[in-house]
């Protein structure tokens, strides 16, 4: 008799405690600000890509999840300031362990991680994210590459004074 009361007591007591279950997916959990979520390839303020296709991320990756192939910027087709851009960029989220070594390796702060954690799918192919999936969306004032350098004459202007030049250009 006493034993069952004790049991109900636990149930009753729990009713007043904070619940640990979440209303996912109706209510999405807000992660910690530095949560290692899906990657993003950032852009310069004028829309040019920051990625130079150097493959340091692929080199740093302990899970061999990243594939990069560089390409040559030409006068007619410019994707990033400078000589080189990432022509092909793929991250395989079946392999990625979210360690973040790739973003530490990135010399241009092109690759960063967002807080997006919804990385599940029902087939393998769709979990290999390509450059189109990973590139940051175009914000107002940005222009879809390829286009010439709008913020300066060479890549130094972008790396050294990028934000100021963007401000001056009214972006």
């Amino acid at each position, binding site marked *: 008799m006493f034993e069952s009361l004790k049991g109900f007591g636990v149930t009753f007591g729990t009713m007043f405690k904070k619940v640990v279950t979440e209303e996912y997916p109706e209510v999405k959990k807000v992660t910690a600000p530095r949560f290692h979520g899906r990657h993003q390839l950032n852009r310069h303020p004028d829309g040019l890509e920051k990625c*130079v*296709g*150097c*493959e*340091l991320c*692929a*080199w740093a990756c302990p899970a061999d999840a990243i594939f990069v*192939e*560089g*390409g*040559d910027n030409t006068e007619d087709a410019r994707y990033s300031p*400078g*000589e*080189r851009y990432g*022509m092909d960029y793929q991250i395989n989220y079946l392999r990625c362990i979210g360690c973040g070594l790739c973003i530490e390796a990135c*010399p*241009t702060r092109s690759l960063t991680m967002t807080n997006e954690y919804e990385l599940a799918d029902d087939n393998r192919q769709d979990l290999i994210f390509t450059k189109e999936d990973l590139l940051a969306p175009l914000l107002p004032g940005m222009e879809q590459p390829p286009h010439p350098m709008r913020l300066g004459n060479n890549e130094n202007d972008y790396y050294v004074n990028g934000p100021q030049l963007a401000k001056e250009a009214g972006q």
Partner: protein
Amino acid sequence: MTIAPDKPTEAEVVVPEGHVKLVIDGETVVAPKGELLIRTAERLGTVIPRFCDHPLLEPAGACRQCLVEVEMGGRPMPKPQASCTMTVADGMVVKTQLTSPVADKAQQGVMELLLINHPLDCPICDKGGECPLQNQAIAHGRSDSRFHEHKRTFPKPINISTQVLLDRERCVLCQRCTRFSAQIAGDPFIELLERGALQQIGTAPEKPFQSYFSGNTIQICPVGALTSAAYRFRARPFDLVSTPSICEHCSSGCAERTDWRRGKVQRKLAGDDPQVNEEWICDKGRFAFRYATAEDRIKRPLVRDKESGELRESSWTEALRVAAEGLTAARDANGVGVLTGGRLTVEDAYAYSKFARIALHTNDIDFRARPHSAEELEFLSGTTVFTNPDNGVTFQGIEKAPAALLVAFEPEEEAPIVFLRLRKAARKGTTKVFHLGQFTTPAVEKTYGTLLACVPGAEANAINALPEHASDVVELLSKPGAVILVGERAAAIPGTFTAVARLAERTGAQVAWIPRRAGERGALAVGATPNLLPGGRHVANATARTEVERTWGVEEGSLPATPGRDTTGILEAAANGELSGLLIGGVDPFDLPDPRLAEKALAAAGFIVSLELRPSAVTAHADVVLPIAPAVEKSGSYLNWEGRRREFGTTLDGTSALPDCRVLDTLAVEMDADLFTQTPAASAADLARLGEGTPSGSSLNVAAPLVSPAGPGKAVLATWHRLIGNGSLQVDEPHLAGTARPVVAKIAEATAQQFGLVSGGYVTVSTERGAITLPVETDDLPEGVVWLPTNSGDVTVRATLGAGHGSIVSVSGGTS
């Protein structure tokens, strides 16, 4: 526990003759006199950092990275010394960065100096990951720099040729590239310009870096200053798989390293083989590999549709059945001829040879897809086929030869690595090089050679006249070790092989035959010729035939006993119906001596089976086209011109492309014959069981022709192939094609005036078949001779003119 032997004390070390004793980092070493300190240290396992030092280049002491502390005769030298320029001496005491803080600090200082103006380009630099500067900066540099000023900048990158890009900011002025170009290649198109901080590598205006060996400078550049246009930003060393391979382009058989990624070859680098190519390869070997991934490559078997008359894709089963039925029918009618081309591996050529004998019952097989003669065949089957590195001329033999006579052989264009050896030997001053040719080509100058000029076609007369007119040449050739190198062009000149053989007999000089294509020497060895069975056995020799019959396990007396037709004979027979079918592997009809005859034969032949990589003039006529694997997708071996077996493994595995030997094996099974060549390894083993035959000697007796003057308005044509031209293995290589030499005709000054031509103007060379108009340059050719590149740009001598070396052509002034 390992027991280490007691180190000998200083007194016990025996110093052999010509050696000295010194101490490096406290360890006593014996080194041969004249050895550089940096190498002695390397033998001890101490790697001193360096940029400018290269074992095959002369010491320069340009980068100063290899500083060590040196003590001579008990007195220390006042400053650290560059170990790459200092030779060992008796009693020297050397302290490297391992034991001397002075040396270590000096090296760190030099590194800091080199990095002052070196840009932080590593992420976008192609050298990143395999960069000696990067590696040594980490190993021997400081972690931070004291310089905060702006770095010196240059506009970048600049194209010093279509395939070499120069980034001057990255250069550490080690001069490896300029020294290579000046010393090894002999093309000093790049040089140090300016002084001080602005010192830079550069080319003269309007004179790009057009060397056949420019790719080597990219490979030896210790920083990312020289990069390849074709490989630009393609990959990083860590994602490349490196496979050792052998170059498939010429008969030198250079060792290469093929780097590939995701099933695609990204680049080729020179391998290190001191006996063959040392550490160098030519640009064709380095840059021409995209033919294997060309858009139009044939991947599925094709069968000609009976109704539409067009080729259509089919299954292997169907294609092999149709091919086997067609070949059997043609064999039982008038017979089938086999043309194999000169690009096959030994294993594949062996399969063709065996297929012709067992499945087609014929000796009508010839590998020579170029001008050829019966005299050439007699020479090759009598002597060349039995040469090997142990009894014949070798690369190293050339280096030691007192004299080399080059007959109808343009080394830089036809076998570039032979050219490098000749230049190396001539540069040492021990070898005198004589070129029997038409004009002073760059190769003549760069080998410090003497031109023995003659009218095309008169080469044989010229050789016969040597004792009379150039007794010094004969005298030099009589010294032990002298060599005579004969090129493929000799086949176009009657009497040359006879004259060469006589000269060799007279002088005792060794003769080497250096063909242009990689597979020719191998095809000769395995009997892809009308008169030979594998191993140099003559088909008319009954004992040799029985030997082969026994080893092959075929009925005695089943091998055909009479020599077959050669390439031209096969084509003529096919054209007039004496042969009913053709089996053709990788032959371009426009390389043949008479392309029109080839076209006629292809049109007339009843049944044609073509084993090809890409559509060609042969596949246009073929009834069945069977796709085969390019060199990177199969294993095998080439015999280089020395007779040295150059084995290579499969680079790109699992592409499902089949080598010729496998295709022929299956085709033979369909025809009820067993070749036992399912794989290259099986083919090689089957060939090895045969062994070599016994030399029967050759009886060369072709008289040198009397060369008559060309007549008014006419000239004698001299022509040979250029290294970089319209070759079928050079498709899809725009960067390489950009470094081809300008396509011009050459003519003597006096002859030019006679025809009213001016240097820089245009000339029209014609025969009754066609005409070629191209810019003309005057040079030191004999009078009445005009030279054209055989197959470069718009100039296709064989296809347009139907002419060859020694033909009579009409010459007139032309406009572009």
